[in-house]
C-alpha cells in the first residue's frame, strides 16, 4: 500500500521558517516508521535529517513526534496508524531543532549528569561483589530500562512552562541511584531531588509514562520520590 508522510523540515542555516513536506512511500503494515523514513531519504530526498542506529528500540537515537505523540520511529509500525490519512512526523517538542528531526540533546544529557548517575560507595570495597537481595535489586529493575531517548522529557507539558525543570528522564536516573542499596549517598541524593527544579515541578500529567518506549512507570517513580523526600525531612526534623 501507499502511505503519505507529512514531515517537519527545518535547516537553521538556510531556512527562515520551518515547513512541512509531504512524501508518499510504498509500505506494509509490518514496516517500521523508521523503514519508511529510510525509504524517503534513500530513494526520494537525501536532504532529510534524522538520527537512527539500532532500529529496534535499544540505542534511543530516533525519538520523535509521530502524529502528535513522542515515540521511537523504530518501535512504531505503519500498522499502528490509520493510513487513510497522512502520518505527521515532527522533532521532539521542547528541544531545539538542529536540523529537521534532529534535536539538541546536550542540555538533556547535562540534566541527567546533574543527578550523579553513578554508584558512590563509601568505604572499602569487598574482594567479591557488593551483595544485594533480590528484593532490593527489584527496586531498580524498571528504572534500568531507560535508554535516554528523551521521549518522556519531550512529552512533558511542564518542560515548556518551566524550562529549568530537570525533567522526567533525569528523575528516572535520580530514582535508579537513590534506590540502589549499594550506594552511600542517599541523603545527598534526596537533597538534590528536593531542589526547586527536582521532583516538585512534576504535576502528574502522566505524559512521560504514556510515551515511554520501555514502559518505565516514570510518574509513579517521581511520586514515590516525593513521598520519600517528605519522609526524610520529617524524620530529620524530629
Amino acid at each position, binding site marked *: 500500500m501507499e502511505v503519505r508522510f507529512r514531515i517537519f523540515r527545518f535547516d537553521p542555516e538556510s531556512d527562515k521558517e520551518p515547513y512541512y513536506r509531504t512524501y508518499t512511500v510504498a509500505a506494509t503494515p509490518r514496516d517500521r516508521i523508521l523503514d519508511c523514513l529510510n525509504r524517503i531519504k*534513500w530513494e526520494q530526498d537525501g536532504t532529510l535529517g534524522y538520527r537512527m542506529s539500532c532500529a529496534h528500540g535499544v*540505542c534511543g537515537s530516533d525519538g520523535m513526534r509521530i502524529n502528535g505523540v513522542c515515540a521511537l520511529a523504530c518501535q512504531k509500525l505503519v500498522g499502528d496508524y490509520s493510513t487513510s490519512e497522512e502520518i505527521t512526523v515532527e522533532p521532539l517538542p521542547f528541544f531545539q531543532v*538542529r536540523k529537521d528531526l534532529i534535536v539538541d540533546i546536550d542540555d538533556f544529557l547535562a540534566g541527567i549528569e546533574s543527578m550523579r548517575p*553513578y*554508584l558512590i560507595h563509601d568505604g572499602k570495597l569487598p574482594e567479591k561483589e*557488593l551483595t544485594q537481595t533480590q528484593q532490593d*535489586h527489584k527496586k531498580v529493575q524498571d528504572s534500568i530500562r531507560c535508554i535516554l531517548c528523551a521521549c518522556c522529557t519531550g512529552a512533558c507539558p511542564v518542560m515548556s512552562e518551566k524550562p529549568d525543570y530537570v525533567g522526567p528522564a533525569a528523575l528516572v536516573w535520580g530514582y535508579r*541511584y537513590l534506590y540502589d542499596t549499594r550506594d552511600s549517598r542517599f541523603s545527598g541524593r534526596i537533597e538534590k531531588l528536593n531542589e526547586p527544579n527536582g521532583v516538585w515541578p512534576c504535576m502528574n500529567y502522566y505524559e512521560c509514562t504514556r510515551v515511554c518506549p*520501555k514502559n518505565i512507570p516514570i510518574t509513579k517513580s517521581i511520586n514515590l520520590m516525593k513521598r520519600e523526600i517528605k519522609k526524610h525531612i520529617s524524620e530529620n526534623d524530629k
Partner: protein
Amino acid sequence: MVFRHDVLIVGAGIAGLRAASEVAGRADVALISKVYPTRSHSGAAQGGIAAALQNEEPDFWEWHMYDTVKGSDYLGDQDAAEILAKDAIRAVYELEHMGVPFNRTPEGKIAQRFFGGHTRNFGQAPVKRICYAADRSGRVIMDTLYFDAVKKGIKIYPEFHVLDLVIKEGQVAGLIAYELGTGEVHFFQSRAVLIATGGYGKVYKVTSNAFASTGDGLSLIYRLGLPLEDMEFVQFHPTGIEGLGVLITEAARGEGGVLRNREGERFMERYAPVIKDLAPRDMVSRAVYTEIREGRGIDGQDYVHLDLTHLGEEKLAERLSDISSFVRIYLGLNPATDLIPVHPTCHYMMGGIPVTRDGNVTDVKNDPVPGLYAAGECSCISLHGANRLGCNSLLDLVVFGRRAGQHIVENLGRLSWVEPPPRPEQEALDTIRRIEENRTGEKAVGIRRSMQEIMMADCSVFRSEQGLKSALEAVRSLEQRAGSISIDNRGKRYNTDLTEALELRNLLQLAEAIAASALNRTESRGAHWREDYPQRDDKQWLKHTLVQRTDAGVSITYKPVTITIFPPKPRAY
C-alpha cells in the same frame, strides 16, 4: 580547527569507554564517536558476560578457557583465551563495584545462567557461568561506563565521523574527522590512536547490527595497506526475528527455550546430543539452515520456531523482558503463548584488525605499529578464532579494552608528537568534494542493497567456491560503481546522505576482504563452512589468515596459531 590530545579513542562503546577510563588521569584522552556514546552498539548486547564466579555451581577459569578454545574450533590463540578466562572474574567484580545492576541469587550474589558452549568439566554438561542484568546486560554496562567517563571528565566528541588516520614514517600523527553537525573537517593531533569502532554486520542483508555498524575503523587500517586478520569468520546468530534480523538472545535458550521445526521436533537433539539447544552459534545456525533446506522450515518457509511457551510469564518478565517486548512489537506475538519465528542473522565478526595481547596493532610481519591500537569487535587478538561463544564478547571488551588502555599509558613516554604532513585533511576533503560534485552517478541505496544480497546469498552460513567467486566478482564491480556515487544533499548540517556514501565505501572494502579470505580457505572450521571442503584440515589450515590490499590487488598471507594447553581435537557437543 585543530585539536590535540595525547590519546584519541575512536568509538565510545564498551571497549573504547573501558580503555578511556584506564588512560584518564594519566594522560589527556578524548573519545571520538560518530554517534552519541550511549547510542553505541555494545548497548544491544542482551545475554550477559561470562566469568567462572562459582556463584551458582562449581566452575573454574580452566573450563572457561577450554570452552573458549573449543568454541573457536581451535583457531583462537590459547594465550589470549587464558588471559580472558582468568581476568574475567576480576573484570565482573569491577563492573559490579562500578554499579552495574546484575540480577541476584537468593544469597544476594551475582546470579548466573546457562549459555551456548559454556560447559562443566571440559564439555560434560552446560554450566551456569553467565552474569546478567535481565536481557539488557550490554546496555547497563555501557551506561555505567559512560557515566563513569563523564564523572572522570573525559573529553567526548559526539557525532564526529573519523575519515582518515594520519601516519608519518610509520608512526601515528593523528586522525581526520568530519563533524556531522557542521560539515567541517578537522585534524586531531595525537601520540596514540585506539580504534574501537565495533563490527560491520551491515555488509549483510539480515543482521542484528545497527546502521552504524559499518566497520569504519577496519577500513582506516585496510586503506593504509595494513592487514586484516581472519576476515572469513562471520558469526550468524541462530535466532534473529524472521525477516528483520532483530536479535533474540541465546539466554532465551539458556533459560530453557528450545528450537522446533515444522514437525514440532526439538531438532538440536540430533545435531548436538549432549548440550542440544546450547550448542555454539555456528553449529545451531547450520542446523537451522539444514532443517530449512530439507523442507522442515515452518510451512516450508525459511524459518523455524523458538519455543519459550513453557518458561512462564514470571521468568519472561524478570529475565527476558526486552526480547518479549520485541516479539510483541514487531510480530504481534506473546512469547508466553506463541511460538517465535526465527532464522540466522549476521551478528558478530570474529575477524578484524590484528593486535597483540595488549591491543597494539600489528603489521603483516607481526611487528607492532607504534602508537596504533585497536580493541573490541573491530580487533582480532585472536581470541574467538573461528567462532565466538556468547557472553565472551562483553568480556573481551572490558578485559582487552583495559589492557590496551594500560599499554598506551605505559608506552606514551616513548611516543613523541609527530609533525603532521602539510594539510593532512586534504585527501578527506577531496573525497568529499568528488562525491558532492558528482551529478550523474547512481545513489548509494542500490549498490548497498546489491552488496547485502550478494553477501547473504553466497558468503554467509554455507559457502562454496562457485558462490564465493561470483560474490567476489560482484562486490568488485559494485566497488567500481560506488566510485561514482551521487548524493542529493549538499548541505553542511547532518549530511548523512554523504556519510552513508562514505560508509558504503568502507563496507564494500570489507565485503571484498571477507569474500577473498573465504574463497582462499579451503576447509570448514567454525563459522566458515565450505560445502566443497566439509572437513576441518588442521594440517593445512590451522593458521590465521592475513588479508591486505597491495598495488597488485588483494594479497593473502598467514600467521601461526598459539596453542598452549589444549591440542586440537574433533569438535562435538
